[in-house]
């Protein structure tokens, strides 16, 4: 039996930095690539980098990046023979995977059945238990909670966390520390789950107060081979969303790594997994770990694994989709890599998402620095999509070398016109617990970072210069000569 199938043209069904990332891998593999875009993304970088681009529809994702019929028709119109979904949007939607294969194209991802098995958190828990993978102790809540199910929940011991079965990204999650608030937490989680996912099924898990979030990268091919490629530490989160990730984890010994990797491979095998995927675990200080969920797609933070192991995971996905066998892969990382996610958000205002036009965007560079970004100077950052602008990754021979390179790279990055978390990321990476690698999932909530300083005199003077000037563009030393690239005054220090 042979699965080999030549691919020639890939539709990248996504936007932003991940679309750019996949387009790069396609080009490296000698494949043509087609981008898709909404009306909000006409000027976006991924559109410019592709061989061809197809308009999907208006800005709202439901009418563009989340429309299966529009994406299939875009792929057919441009005679693509494969589709890469990236992450987010439809990447974990089994109906989309089926629509792609039903249309005679190759789905660059796991089989639809594996996506479904892991998509429902409750069914995933049962499958994992059966496969012998340790699962967080929990209880299923059936129809509106009867007192009988409460006993089962209380047997877990408080605190517990109520979660939506169809959920993700922390949506609907409620931590319960007192019996009295349990039934209200279940009711409100149900409401939010119904509104967000159209499914009000919820379940309850034991809640660990300060665990580490550790995940294992796995890859499977169509010939039954599954391998684990080390772990990632993703404990630094705000609003249950990751902001800094690293590989390897400072808490994982070679012995623990091999146990984690074995459990992840078992988990992937249990659902017949193919392509790249991630098995998430909670790690307790004792070294005990518990299966949390499996993400059946490429992960946002995949570059830290790539940098630590010197691999190209998207290239491997393309090769696997074409029927290729997994090559020999290293068992341990040879570098340490840390990633920081640059978000358009205001850390001084509860991390509220920000939007606007990016009037100046300068990316860092240098030894061991990698930038995966989807934005360029002049681009509008739109409220319709995820506010992540770029991922800045640094690697080093040691964790400390990687951390210092990342701090330097963040300071080098310039983003004017849209408020970002750049400065906050720098202060986070310079904090003692992060320097020591003593991170856990509630660290950011409890960590008091040094407050931002008031601007020095030079900053007030520079601001006065652009605010008092005429509306035409000008640069330092060459006042009001040629207009700059922006319809706003722009001044640089220096000149005569």
């Amino acid at each position, binding site marked *: 039996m042979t699965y080999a199938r030549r691919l020639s043209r890939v539709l990248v069904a996504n936007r932003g930095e991940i679309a750019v990332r996949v387009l790069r891998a396609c080009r490296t593999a000698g494949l043509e690539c087609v981008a898709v875009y909404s009306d909000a993304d006409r000027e976006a970088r991924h559109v410019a980098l592709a061989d061809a681009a197809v308009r999907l529809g208006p800005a709202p994702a439901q009418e563009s990046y989340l429309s299966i019929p529009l994406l299939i028709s875009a792929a057919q119109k441009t005679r693509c023979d494969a589709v890469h979904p990236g992450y987010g949007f439809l990447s974990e939607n089994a109906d989309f995977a089926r629509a792609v294969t039903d249309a005679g194209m190759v789905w660059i991802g796991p089989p639809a059945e594996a996506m479904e098995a892991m998509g429902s958190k409750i069914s995933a828990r049962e499958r994992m238990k059966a496969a012998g993978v340790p699962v967080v102790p929990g209880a299923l809540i059936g129809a509106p909670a009867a007192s009988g199910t409460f006993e089962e929940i209380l047997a877990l011991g408080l605190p517990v966390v109520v979660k939506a079965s169809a959920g993700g990204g922390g949506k609907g999650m409620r931590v319960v520390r007192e019996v009295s608030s349990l039934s209200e937490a279940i009711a409100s989680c149900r409401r939010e789950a119904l509104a967000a996912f159209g499914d009000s099924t919820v379940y309850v898990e034991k809640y660990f107060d300060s665990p580490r979030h550790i995940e294992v990268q796995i890859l499977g091919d169509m010939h039954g081979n599954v391998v684990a490629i080390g772990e990632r530490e993703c404990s630094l989160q705000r609003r249950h969303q990751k902001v800094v990730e690293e590989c390897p984890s400072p808490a994982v010994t070679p012995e623990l790594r091999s146990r984690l990797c074995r459990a992840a491979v078992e988990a992937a095998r249990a659902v017949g997994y193919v392509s790249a995927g991630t098995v998430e675990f909670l790690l307790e200080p004792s070294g005990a770990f518990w299966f949390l969920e499996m993400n059946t797609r490429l992960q946002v933070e995949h570059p830290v694994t790539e940098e630590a192991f010197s691999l190209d995971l998207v290239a491997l996905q393309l090769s696997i989709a074409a029927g290729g066998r997994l090559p020999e892969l290293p068992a341990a990382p040879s570098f340490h890599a840390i990633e920081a996610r640059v978000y358009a958000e205001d850390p001084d205002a509860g991390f509220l998402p920000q939007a606007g036009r990016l009037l100046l965007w300068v990316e860092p560079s240098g030894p061991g620095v990698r930038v995966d970004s989807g934005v360029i100077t002049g681009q509008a950052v739109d409220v319709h999509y995820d506010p992540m602008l770029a991922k800045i990754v640094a690697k080093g021979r040691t964790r400390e070398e990687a951390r210092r390179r990342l701090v330097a790279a963040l*300071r080098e990055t310039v983003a004017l016109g849209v*408020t970002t978390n*750049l400065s906050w990321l720098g202060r986070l990476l310079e904090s003692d617990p992060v320097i020591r690698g003593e991170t856990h999932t509630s660290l950011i909530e409890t960590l008091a970072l040094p407050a931002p300083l008031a601007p020095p005199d030079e*900053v007030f003077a520079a*601001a006065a*210069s652009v*605010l*008092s000037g005429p509306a035409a563009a000008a640069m330092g030393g060459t006042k009001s000569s040629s207009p700059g690239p*922006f319809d706003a005054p722009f001044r*640089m220090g220096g000149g005569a």
Partner: protein
Amino acid sequence: MRLRDLRTGEEREVAGKDVAPGTMALRAGNVAWVSHRGETYRLSAVPRFSSRTARRPEDTHSLEAPMPGRILGVRTAAGATVKKGDTLVLVEAMKMEHAVRAPKDGTVARVLVNEGQMVGLGDVLVEME
């Protein structure tokens, strides 16, 4: 001119108008964006006449959109009596919900938005007395 740092709220009377070497400054609307020694700053001019004298009466409060997004729900109406902390408007952007709450006990004078409407950062949503 008098400038305010939008992050710390610090105000200063500024005489010089030089852009020092290594500093970049750029204007977007009424906000100056300055990149200086690895940090980014946002500043705006403080109108001379408004700072103390021409301000609205102390008892009027304009509640503004904390982020650009869509109005998910309006939980109040003109004339309603509200308590400090009551949710007045829900704003949603990029999958995140934010509740705009009453900063004090009082009466809602005007509601300027409808459910489903898109709003920009700083748009006035509700006026309270």
